[in-house]
């Protein structure tokens, strides 16, 4: 049931206005006749007291206001002084110290907007100052006390996605003493980082680094982790999201000694996603050795429930009839850390799927991994790879009309940020594993921008990697070589480092440096009302200033869900997201500015216009009320979702909705007052 708007119902007290005109030590006073202004304003209705003062911001100035409030019963304050940006806070707190609602004060800028810009016209400046103050006084008659919007906030956050970004932000939030639930869709933690051999810029083993992080997360008592889990329903707003989670069963409970046997008896063979199809797995499998959680898992989609594995496993270890479970969470904020997926080339794109010797950079990582499908030997099709070409910007920096679009009709016109340095680091690894191999690097621009990245580029040059440069309009071609040739593939490039000559490179293997696409999260976008950008990655409020917040209060972004990033950048973004969550939830209460829409119940006839135009999600709803047997509809504001943009106020046909603190009737009164007759004054200026 929506709450009743109390402030509307209360009878308004008679305004008793205190007026203060600051001389600013002559800055205002030398141009504007402050004493006269104060005297004139004192004649206006409702003005109880009116002063001119040398420095209103000084302690004596502030005390004057406080005394008037306490002793003269002043209940509205109008101050004309320097810019409101300098001293609005000062005066608000003075008013509050006197026991008055701090929003019952209005500030008129008499320095930056009057005395400093009209020195040549003291008379007219005084007239303008008087009128501006009259406007302020008119507004003061209409002002109502405002309270910040306070919402109870659960000291509990949900992190969606258990890649390096999700893990890092869960850790940072938990270390602040808040509860964290982390859910991961797959059955293991770590996301893509687990798949890489070594990572730039430190050349460390990715899984070693990841393991350290996961161990810290596991050691944190405030974190609860659910793998195989996804959000199915959400409701509520910042401070109070109610979320339903569905967790797929794992089917296997803990490790057991003859796991290998249980796997061996499984008759199903599937492409191993972890190796990007370079190897196969069974329907009972482990993503990789050492993964967390480490027990085997059943691939329900492909398992035929033949029961072979159950027979060999110890009693109760495997349960093929386990059901999914659903449970509810109440959290104050949500971190979206749903990550990326590597770009999947289209059929025939530079030979992809057409020739088995064309692989992606992600596959190359698996291939060169000591724990990978070829135990780290640089072999393809059973033969050592001699010559290899790496082609950059596959699925990135695409150009409309040149590249084939994605299903949504758009090309990927962004840079994927990590592929250049990742390629350079892989080139170095190839050299290490196959010192005689020729490595061709076919690029548009080398973007080794980060700290330590340029070293990889420079070393690649030293390691005799051959660079060729293509333009996006002239995509390199990958072709099958003649039967007689001793290299199966031919790469044809128009090389712009050598007069645009077309060069043919015979190679054993082509590596496509594929970029990043966001993991598809349309369901979450719909449930949380966040927006994707044109590049399909989740959209931040402001790409420069507020890069980890979304337009929905309480929903923040971490890592590659927001755009291509490397591990370092994902972890930094995760930390930033954690800071925002901690600031929101740490007090157990969220406080928002009071400048939100308010509905006048007398005037609202449920036209729904405001809702139609409101640009915020779920800030306004039409609800049905029954009063004295009459049923009607009326707009209701959810202050937590309203940012006070005022679009509703401009479109309501009944003038039934306003932004608190910025009501239209206040503005009308100001306009009237400014153009009013100035009260007559005995004596000259």
């Amino acid at each position, binding site marked *: 049931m929506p709450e009743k708007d109390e402030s509307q119902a209360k009878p308004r007290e008679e305004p008793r206005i205190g007026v203060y005109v600051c001389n600013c030590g002559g800055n205002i006073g030398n141009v504007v006749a402050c004493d006269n202004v104060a005297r004139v304003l004192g004649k206006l209705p409702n003005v109880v007291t009116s002063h001119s003062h040398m420095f209103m911001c000084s302690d004596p100035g502030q005390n004057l206001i406080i005394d008037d409030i306490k002793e003269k019963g002043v209940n509205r304050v109008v101050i004309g002084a320097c810019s409101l940006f300098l001293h609005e806070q000062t005066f608000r707190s003075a008013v509050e110290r006197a026991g008055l609602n701090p929003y019952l004060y209005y500030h008129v800028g008499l320095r930056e907007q009057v005395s400093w810009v009209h020195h040549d016209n003291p008379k007219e400046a005084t007239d303008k100052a008087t009128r501006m103050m009259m406007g302020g006084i008119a507004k003061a008659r209409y002002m109502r006390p405002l309270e910040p919007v306070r919402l109870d906030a659960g000291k509990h956050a949900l992190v969606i996605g258990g890649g390096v970004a999700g893990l890092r932000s869960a850790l940072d939030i938990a270390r602040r003493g808040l509860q964290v639930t982390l859910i991961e869709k797959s059955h293991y933690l770590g996301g893509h980082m687990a798949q890489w051999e070594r990572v730039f810029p430190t050349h460390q083993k990715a899984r070693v680094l990841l393991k350290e992080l996961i161990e810290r997360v596991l050691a944190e008592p405030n974190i609860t982790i659910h793998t195989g889990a996804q959000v199915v329903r959400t409701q509520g707003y910042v401070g109070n999201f109610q979320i339903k989670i569905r967790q797929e069963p794992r089917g296997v409970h803990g490790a057991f000694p003859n796991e290998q046997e249980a796997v061996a008896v499984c008759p199903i063979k599937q492409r191993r996603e972890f190796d990007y199809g370079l190897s196969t797995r069974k329907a009972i499998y482990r993503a990789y050795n050492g993964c967390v959680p480490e027990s085997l898992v059943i691939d329900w989609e492909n398992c035929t429930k033949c029961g072979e594995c159950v027979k060999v496993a110890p009693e109760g270890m495997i349960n093929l009839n386990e059901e999914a479970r659903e449970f509810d969470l109440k959290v104050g904020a949500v971190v979206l850390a749903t990550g990326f997926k590597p770009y999947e080339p289209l059929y025939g794109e530079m030979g992809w799927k057409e020739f088995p010797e064309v692989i992606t950079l992600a596959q190359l990582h698996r291939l060169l991994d000591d724990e990978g499908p070829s135990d780290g030997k640089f072999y393809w099709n059973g033969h050592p790879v001699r010559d290899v070409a790496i082609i950059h910007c596959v699925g990135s920096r695409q150009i409309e009309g040149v590249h084939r679009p994605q299903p949504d009709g758009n090309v990927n016109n962004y840079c994927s940020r990590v592929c250049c340095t990742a390629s350079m680091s892989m080139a170095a690894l190839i050299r290490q594993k196959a010192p005689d191999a020729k490595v061709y690097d076919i690029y548009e621009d080398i973007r080794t921008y980060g700290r330590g990245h340029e070293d990889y580029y420079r070393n690649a040059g030293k390691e005799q990697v051959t660079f060729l440069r293509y333009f996006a309009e002239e995509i390199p071609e990958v072709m099958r070589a003649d039967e007689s040739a001793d290299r199966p593939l031919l790469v044809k490039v128009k090389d712009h480092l050598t007069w645009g000559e077309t060069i043919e490179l015979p190679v054993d293997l082509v590596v496509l440096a594929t970029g990043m696409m966001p993991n598809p999260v349309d369901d979450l976008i719909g449930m949380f009302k966040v927006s994707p950008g044109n590049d399909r990655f989740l959209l931040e409020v402001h790409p420069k200033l507020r890069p980890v917040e979304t337009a929905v209060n309480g929903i923040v972004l971490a890592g590659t869900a927001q755009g291509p990033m490397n591990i370092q950048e994902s972890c930094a973004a995760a930390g930033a997201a954690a*800071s925002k969550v901690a600031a929101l939830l740490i007090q157990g209460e969220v406080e928002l500015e009071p400048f939100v829409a308010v509905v006048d119940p007398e005037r609202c006839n449920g036209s729904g216009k405001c809702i139609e135009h409101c640009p915020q999600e779920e800030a306004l709803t039409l609800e049905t009320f029954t009063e004295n047997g009459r049923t009607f509809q009326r707009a209701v504001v959810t202050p937590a979702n309203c940012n006070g943009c005022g679009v509703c106020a401009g479109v309501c046909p009944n003038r039934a909705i306003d932004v608190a603190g910025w009501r239209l009737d206040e503005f009308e009164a100001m306009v009237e007052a400014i153009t009013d007759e100035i009260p007559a004054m005995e004596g000259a200026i």
Partner: protein
Amino acid sequence: MTNTLKIDALVVGGGIAGMQASLDLADQGYQVALVEKNPSVGGMMAGLSKVFPTLDCCSCITTPKMSAVAHHANISLMTYSEVQSVMGNEGDYQVRVMKKPRYVIEDECSGCRSCEMVCPLDLPDYDNEYGRGAHRVIYVPFSTAVPQKALIDIDNCIYCGKCLKACTTNAIDFAQQPEYVNIETTSIVLATGYKTTPYDAKKEYGGGRLRNVVHGMMVERLLAPTGAYGRQLRPSDGRQPDNIAYVQCAGSRDLTLGVDYCSRVCCMYAIKQAMLLAGALPMADITIYYMDIRAFGKGYEQFYENAKAMGIQFVKGKVARITEDENQNPILRVELIDQNSRVVERKHDLAVLSVGMLPGFDPNSMYGVPVDKDGFIKAPNPNISPTLTMREGIFATGTATGPMDIVDSIITAGAVAAEAAAYIQSHNGHRQLVAEQTERSVTHA
């Protein structure tokens, strides 16, 4: 006079990174002191024109942050102040800060600038305008400076006393002495930023002697609405340039200058400036000589594409030398990488060196925090914990940890706040608001 302050975090450097880190810590309820050596916060960002890739007016997005740090109840802002010594141990640092004399009493000054009006002496403004603009001997640093307080360049003051008479609040004090503040803090965040690579270091580019060879930051000021001239001109004769060259990697990726890294922002700011110049000077030709265009951030590639569509010329080439003709037009000798390193000479009427970034400060001797071979603060675990330094309880953020743009500075500022907050929390013995602990459970494990 000496005061003592007990706080949770001391943030050193009031650029965008330091300001954001302060706000993110203060918003979590921690007590923060922000020490900035210059008379205003804002750092390099406060002087930029518009920012890539949004082309937001830069002051418009900086000023609210600047006033936010000044007004935040949990932040003590100390501008024109420097750390003098750091003692103590991990988690319990004693820091001595000197507030340099402004010769203007901060609490009294109302920022009215009456003193400025009467001061008879103009000085070239090196700090904010690279010698192009001027300020008085007594001056408020710039129009959006925070705090809006005057200071006197005492070395150049002739003590004529005019400001004394003009000041309505008796704020001027020629005898002002430094003040000292002793700070006890659990943690320290270094956000000491960057400086640009010297534009006169490279002999081949004229060593700073060619008048129509300027650097990126100067152009920012030409383009800024608050800049000294308010229009685009070339220094030698004030004429509008109509054939402008950008020389990329002038000071970065250049082993001869000892700067072997990429400075990360220069491609983007050159493209931005080129677009703004093209808007202001529709008839001008603008050419960017580059090695690789590194438009890697969110929305950056599209920005680059827009610039190409606007007709800005991109030439892949390394500028080997710059000389000038008799009209002081810069002549660029360019190795065209795209054409097998063929060498050509191109005449322009203004050349802009896209200078890179050097660390703004070496914290090793004072803070015991070593730097890496690139001179930026060393990160022991750059992948997972990019804001840690080699010393416990001391963290680093923004361009103090390597070149980066504003959005990345803001992100690492959020990250350093999280890292420092966790440290403070564990160090202060969970003194506030400890959430009740529930049983740890990892389902499926």
